[in-house]
């Protein structure tokens, strides 16, 4: 990449104060995203993928501490902004779409009110033109402007429609970066495909950079330019989507892919691949590779130092002491 990346995150750490001590939710996370590119952050629950997104947006819960060497979006250095300046950026330059469409809209206000509020705040529009623009945007996300949708309340809409409203609302001020945190997880499969279509289409059309958080490798394969796989608070592997899915080099990525039931790969009645054990606790002092306890290839060295994220020949980054040759050929 010749240009400077549009989003640049370096050394992001997020700790949570929990009853037992400090939970290291995100550890030393670094990634760059080019303008218009889609980066998928994939991982299981507790991997820190949502915390990364919230940390970037400055929406962390009150018991969280964030620190980073660099957090840049476009020309803005997020680390140097105060709360007010950050609020000016949110919704305007960078927007976020959440997982639960059922609870993410305020039940007390109409769709029109909640949408136009953004335009009034950021674009200093009047109420009337704001409502007109909101109607246009609803049309754009596939909600016909006929049925007086602007005057409806969220509880009168289905989950799929609410997510469309959310997408319209968040894209109305033409942000340059959109962070989507599992936007389709709570939806049915047919709706999921429709929403992904809509989101990917609008992203391409408007040239938006996207960070897409998901646990679903299927979704990753269809939407991402690049993937970051997170495990136990760390990025364990990052690279171009095709390469990661076709030739995973971290044992966790490989294990995860084998767990997914896929047609042709697993016969009914046959066994799926598994990753034995459970995720380690992230509370307190941590040492060694986070995956060592569940890794079939773990060696003595894996339990000492935390392995660094190293760049391999094809440009992909892997946080593992061993190369794939050393791992799979022996097995």
């Amino acid at each position, binding site marked *: 990449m010749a240009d400077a990346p549009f989003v640049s995150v370096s050394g992001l750490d997020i700790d949570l104060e929990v009853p*037992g001590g400090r939970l290291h939710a995100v550890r030393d996370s670094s990634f760059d995203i080019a303008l218009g590119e889609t980066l998928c952050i994939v991982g299981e629950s507790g991997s820190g993928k949502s915390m990364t997104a919230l940390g970037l947006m400055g929406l962390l819960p009150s018991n969280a501490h964030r620190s980073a060497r660099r957090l840049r979006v476009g020309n803005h250095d997020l680390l140097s902004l105060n709360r007010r300046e950050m609020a000016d950026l949110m919704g305007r330059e960078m927007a976020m779409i959440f997982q639960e469409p059922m609870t993410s809209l305020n039940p007390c206000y109409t769709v029109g009110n909640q949408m136009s509020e953004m335009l009034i705040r950021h674009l200093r529009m009047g109420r009337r033109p704001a409502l007109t623009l909101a109607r246009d945007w609803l049309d754009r996300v596939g909600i016909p402007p006929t049925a007086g949708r602007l005057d409806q309340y969220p509880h009168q809409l289905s989950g799929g429609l609410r997510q469309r409203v959310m997408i319209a609302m968040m894209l109305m001020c033409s942000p340059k970066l959109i962070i989507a945190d599992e936007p389709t997880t709570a939806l049915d499969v047919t709706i999921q495909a429709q929403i992904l279509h809509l989101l990917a289409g609008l992203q391409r059309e408007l040239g938006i950079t996207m960070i897409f958080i998901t646990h679903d490798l299927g979704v990753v394969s269809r939407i991402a330019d690049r993937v970051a796989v997170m495990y136990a608070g760390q990025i364990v592997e990052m690279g171009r989507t095709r390469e990661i899915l076709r030739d995973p080099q971290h044992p966790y990525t490989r294990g995860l892919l084998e767990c997914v039931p896929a047609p042709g790969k697993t016969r009914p009645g046959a066994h799926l691949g598994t990753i034995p054990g*459970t995720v380690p*606790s992230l509370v307190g002092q941590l040492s060694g590779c986070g995956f060592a306890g569940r890794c079939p290839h773990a060696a003595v060295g894996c339990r000492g130092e935390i392995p660094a994220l190293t760049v391999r020949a094809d440009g992909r980054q892997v946080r593992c002491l061993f190369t794939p040759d050393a791992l799979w050929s022996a097995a």
Partner: protein
Amino acid sequence: MQDAEATTEPTIPTPGAVLWGKILRHKGILFGGGIVAVMVIVAVLAPLIAPYDPYAQSLISRLQPPVWLDGGSWQHPLGTDHLGRDYLSRLMHGARISLIIGACTAAISGVLGTTLGVVAGYFGGRVDTAITFLVTVKLSIPTILVALAVVQLVGGSLTVVVLVLGFLLWHQFAIVARAVTLQIRDMDYITAARMIGCSRARILLTEVMPNLMNQIIVVLTLTMASAIVIEAALSFLGVGVKPPLPSWGIMIAEGRTHIFFDPWLVMIPGAALFALVLSINLLGDGLRDVTAPQGRN
């Protein structure tokens, strides 16, 4: 999905141990519980440790001030009242009345309200509609007014006050028990128990009730506190238990005649009442804190 997964460790303590740990670290519970414990001990042992007979009048030593005021002596550390009765001894015996009223009322209303609430929540439908209506009607009835009226008409005694308050203070139990049971009813472990073939009684007793107890105990403490205050108010108005019983409410009412010259006659029993109610409330609030389901984040 469950972020709790990330912190799953083989060494997680049992729910009981977690609860005790929280209780022992909660200042409100320790403070409130401590004062309540002291009051209970004093009340139980009052006949043994009270320096005087609380009913013994002595016209020579009337209205002696407490020890920290001019003219007070250690003979009567809290002074004497207008009939020369030892104020400390009356205060100690008064604690018995307050605690008996509080405990008995809370027990009666607890059984009544919890049963109604659990039945309404578990069975739902018409039963629920009927019980909810009953609660609405109960809420519309003025507690103090009706308590005053009935106690006045029937005659004031400890038993009457307890029964009347017991039948007037059950609504909070019913509301809480119903709300919690409604949540528990939809839990899959209830469905599992039904599929196993457990009887209704068994499900209610072994699956629903244990999960309800925490909240019921909280309501129990708060109801106990309001019963104590209401009894004192009734007695203060001259319609509760009757003199010469040393109810704190009666002591305040009797001291009121001397409010301008001997205000401590009002202050001391009132302060005792305030302290008891405050500590029961602190205990209840604390228990609510430690038994509340884990919040988000």
